[in-house]
C-alpha cells in the first residue's frame, strides 16, 4: 500500500507547543517551582442533602456538591443500595448496578404506562433516521427480528400442541 507522507513544515502552528521536557519515558518531575499543595484544604460548603444520596464507601462522606434529581427508587433502588455496601474494587458493587439499570428500564416503562403514556419506542430509538439513511439494512434488521420472533413463537406453540395431543 502506498503511503501518503505529509510535509509538516507547511502546517500552521507546527511545533509551537513542543516541550522537550515532556518526555515521560524519562520520568523526571521538577516540583521546585510548583506552589505548595495541601491535603487539608477549605472544604466547600455542603449542598443540603435533601434526597437519598448513595456515596462510595471509599470516601467518608458525601461530596460538597452532587446531582440530586434522581434518588434511588423502587426495586432498582433496593439493588443500588445493596451495591453501595461494597467498594468500587468489588464486582459486588458494579454488577448489581448494571442489573439495577436494567430493572430501572422496566420500571420506567411501567411508570410511563401508569401515567397514561405509551412510550413511542420507534421514535425513542431514532428509527426515523435509520429509515432515511440506512433503509436497506434497517428493513433487513427488522425483518430478521420479526422472523426470529415469529419462528420462536411457532416453535413454542408446536411443542405445546404435541404435548396436548399426547394427553
Amino acid at each position, binding site marked *: *500500500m502506498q*503511503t*501518503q*507522507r*505529509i510535509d*509538516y513544515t507547511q*502546517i*500552521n*502552528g*507546527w*511545533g*509551537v*507547543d*513542543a516541550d522537550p521536557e*515532556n*518526555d*515521560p*519515558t524519562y520520568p523526571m518531575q521538577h516540583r521546585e517551582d510548583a*506552589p505548595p*499543595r*495541601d*491535603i487539608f*484544604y*477549605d*472544604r*466547600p*460548603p455542603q*449542598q443540603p442533602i435533601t434526597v437519598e*444520596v*448513595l*456515596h*462510595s464507601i*471509599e*470516601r467518608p462522606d458525601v*461530596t*460538597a*456538591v*452532587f*446531582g440530586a*434529581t*434522581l434518588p434511588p427508587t423502587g426495586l432498582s433502588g433496593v439493588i443500588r443500595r445493596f451495591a453501595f455496601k461494597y467498594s*468500587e474494587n468489588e*464486582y459486588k458493587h*458494579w454488577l448489581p*448496578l*448494571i442489573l439495577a*439499570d*436494567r430493572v*430501572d*428500564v422496566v*420500571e*420506567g*416503562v411501567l411508570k410511563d404506562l401508569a401515567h397514561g403514556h405509551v*412510550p413511542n419506542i420507534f421514535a*425513542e430509538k*431514532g428509527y426515523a*433516521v*435509520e429509515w432515511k*439513511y*440506512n433503509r436497506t439494512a434497517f428493513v433487513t434488521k427488522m425483518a430478521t427480528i420479526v422472523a426470529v420472533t415469529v419462528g420462536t413463537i411457532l416453535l413454542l406453540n408446536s411443542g405445546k400442541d404435541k404435548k396436548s395431543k399426547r394427553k
Partner: protein
Amino acid sequence: MLAMEYRGPKRVRAVQKPMPEIKHPEDAIVRVTRSCICGSDLHLYNGNVPDTRVGSTFGHEFVGEVVEIGPDVTNIKVGDNVIVPFNVSCGRCYFCQQGMFGNCHQANAMATAVGGIFGYSHTAGGFDGGQAEYARVPYANVGPTVIPPGMDLDDAVLLTDVVPTGYQAAEMAGIQKGDTVLVFGAGPVGIMAARCAWLFGAGRVIVLDKEDYRLEFVRNYAPCEAYNFEEIGDPVLFIKKQTDWLGADCVIDAVGAEAAGNVLQTITGRKTLLQAGSATALHWAINAVKKGGVVSIVGVYGPTDNLVPIGNAMNKGLTIRGNQTSVKRLLPRLIDHVQSGRLNPKALITHRLPMEEVADGYRLFSAKLDNCIKPILIPPTVTK
C-alpha cells in the same frame, strides 16, 4: 423546560422537565445555547456505564448564558456567555490544586475513581447534563469561562471537551519533535488529537479507523496519513512496516469502549458486558508502539476490567498515560489556538438538530449515518 431524557439502552427522548434550581451557594443556572452529543455519550446511550438511571439528562459539552447565580458566585455574572468545561471541579481540593480539574475530589460522591462530569451517570456524580434548555452548573467560580468577544459559539462549544481532550491526548503522548504519532479512531477527538500532534512537533501522524468518510475527513483536516484498518490486514504489523519495524513513538487511543475490529472483544466488551467495553484499540496501541514508547489513553472505558496485553506493556517498557481532560487548565492556551487560526474546531460539526430531535441525533451519530462526524443540538430558546 425541554430536556433530553434517557429511557434505556438506545432509547432517549425529549421531554418537559422541571427547571434546574440553585442548590448550593456556588451554583449557577445556564441557559444552554449549544450542546453536543459526544462519542462518550454513546457509552451511556448503549447502556454500558453502570448506574445510568432512567430519567437522566445527558450532555457534558455545552455553552450558554448565565441566567442566575448563587450568593457566593463572584467570577461570572448574569448575562455572561460561558464555556462550561465538562468537568465539575471545586478548584480547591488536593487534586484541583495540582491542576487536575478532571479529578476533583469534591464533585462525585458515587465513585472515587472518576471526577464529577455533567450528564454522565451517577458513576460520575449524578449531575443532569446540558442537553437541555437550562442546566445547573456547580462550582461556578471555577469551571465556567467567559466566551471571548467574537468567538463563534460553534467553536466555543467544542472547547468544552473535544478540543481539550484531543490536545491533552497529544500532550500526554509526550511527543518529541520528529516523532511518529499513531492515533486510533477518527471520531472528533481522534481528529483533534491528530491535528494537535503537529502542534507538539510530530514528524508523522497516522490515523487508523474503519469508516472511510471519517478517514477522508481527518486526512484533509489534520492533515495526516489515514488508513482503513479493515483493508490493511493486521494493523500492528502494518504500523511496524511503516516505522522501520520499530513501532510508533507514541500511540493515542481515542476510541474507548465502542471499538470494533476484534470479535472476542466485541462479544465480551460490547454485547455481554463481561468486560468494561471492547478494548481492541488499546490492545493494538500497546502492541503497535515502540519499546519505551508512550500510550496515551483518552478513549473512555467502564469501571471494571478489560482484556489488554499488559505483559507486553511491561516487557516493552511502555509508559501508559491517561486521564479525563483537565479542561480548565488547558482553556487559555486553546482559546489562543482558536483565535490565532491554528485550530478550527467548528469544521468538525456536520449536523445540527433541534433538541426535539435528540433521539434522531443519537441514532445518527451512533450508527454513523449520513457521514456524521459531530452533531450539535440547538435548544428551542435559541433564535440564532
